[in-house]
């Protein structure tokens, strides 16, 4: 019985249905059921992928997008975790800083882009700062929440066992908040991922979002799909990557 329950719960993602879909797509394109100039078959997309990656064009765009996402996660996420922990820890800091976070938090982050452009010009800095800010707000908000939700008794236990300020921070606040910090990082990545496409659609001349938009306008549809699938791939790597790192760093949690 338990074996059966476990087999329901622990389903690994199988690649077979996806492979089947690719084959179907190829077939319907082959027999002419779909317009291949709009929906090029996987074989054509694959060929384009190899060509554009080998000649370095797509590789450059991939690198541009990847860099933006990574920088926003590391800088924005890092600042969010750091300041979130400090705000959760010090009531005074929370009183002063938290209102900014709370007010900015619900703003659709794209609207910050024009402000950034007006301050820093049409530069890479503006693009990256916008993304950093978005990640920062989400992660900071989640981190403050995480610290606030740590059960009071753990603070008592720590103080009773002689923990000082540093001890409390290291032994209670950081590990106590860690699981939710990783939820925040996941959410932050989600937002930065939407933002990067929007930013690259409208205000960049590099990156996978830029390739998608310009390929659509120039009607180089296979290239559009290559960029689209590469973005998909980045998403998969990051979402599962963040989850795995989180699991690795919080071994005390029950994982299903």
């Amino acid at each position, binding site marked *: 019985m338990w074996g059966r329950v476990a087999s329901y719960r622990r389903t690994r993602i199988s690649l077979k249905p996806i492979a089947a879909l690719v084959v179907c797509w190829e077939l319907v394109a082959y027999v002419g059921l779909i317009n291949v100039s709009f929906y090029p078959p996987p074989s054509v997309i694959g060929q384009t992928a190899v060509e554009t990656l080998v000649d370095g064009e797509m590789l450059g765009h991939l690198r541009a997008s990847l860099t933006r996402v990574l920088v926003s996660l590391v800088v924005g996420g890092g600042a969010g975790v750091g300041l979130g922990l400090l705000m959760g820890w010090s009531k005074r800091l929370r009183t002063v800083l938290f209102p900014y976070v709370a007010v900015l938090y619900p703003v659709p982050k794209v609207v910050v882009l024009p402000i950034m452009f007006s301050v820093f010009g049409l530069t890479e800095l503006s693009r990256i700062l916008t993304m950093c800010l978005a990640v920062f707000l989400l992660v900071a908000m989640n981190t403050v929440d995480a610290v606030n939700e740590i*059960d009071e*008794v*753990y603070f*008592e*236990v*720590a*103080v*009773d*066992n*002689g*923990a*000082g300020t540093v*001890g409390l921070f290291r*032994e*209670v606040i950081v*590990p*106590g908040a*860690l699981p939710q910090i990783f939820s925040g990082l996941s959410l932050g990545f989600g937002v930065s991922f939407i933002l990067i496409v929007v930013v690259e659609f409208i205000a960049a001349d590099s990156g996978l979002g830029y390739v998608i938009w310009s390929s659509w306008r120039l009607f180089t549809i296979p290239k559009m799909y290559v960029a689209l699938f590469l973005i998909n791939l980045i998403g998969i790597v990051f979402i599962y990557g963040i989850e795995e790192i989180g699991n690795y760093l*919080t*071994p*005390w*949690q*029950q994982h299903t």
Partner: protein
Amino acid sequence: MGEQDRRARSAADRARAGSSVCIRVSDLGHCFETGSGSVQALEGMDLEVYDREFFCLVGPSGCGKSTFLRIVSGLLDHDDGGVEIEKETPADRPMTSMVFQEHGIFPWKSVIDNVAFGLKMRGVSKERRYEIAREYIGKVDLSEFESAYPHELSGGMKQRVGIARAFANDPEIYLMDEPFGSLDAQTKEFLQDELLSLWRDSKKTVVYVTHDIREAIRLGDRVGVMGARPGSIKQIVDVDLDRPRTRERLPTERIDELYETVWRSISGEVEQSMGERH
């Protein structure tokens, strides 16, 4: 062991014979500020806990038992009166150590790191603190689980971790806040025995808060009954039972008598606190 010996070993006689006072509480008062005003948790509380005594504190819920422990431990500052611990502060050991109710151990630390936590905070080297922790983990029968995380343990095992941590700290006074309150009857009885044997080896003072009268009688040298809010000591009952109090040696009749005495004292308080609401 004859009646005479038993009498001679009762806590009251020991006190009369000059056993020194360990915790002296005089006219203690404490007030909580809540959203809807202030609550007087303790008022005019007087108590003397003797050195090496197992002192149990019972009373209706909300009578300030836990508040009292937190004041003795220094986790809470009190408003009026005084709590004096008449012992010299040990150089490299804490004066008090708490055993908490449920959830008193860190979910993010393994059993051994939970037990070694107090030692770590006092700067004991990793090698030495693990050595000490292992000793006490062994004493509470958790050696197989030293690297397990709390979510892998049962409620009773978690409480043993909390007890092992307190004993690894080797304080002068143990403060226990209903440590077995959430456990089933069998586990509870088993852990009571374990606790008594640890206490016997340590020769230290224990203040043990519980709402379970039988538990208080089973464990304590004396049982202090606290009155309803604001809390203070209403009566102290001597538990004149031999030690070691193994199961087969417990005189059920005497226990029932003691139970009645404590119950009468408490039930008056319960009625009073319920009557006040009308």
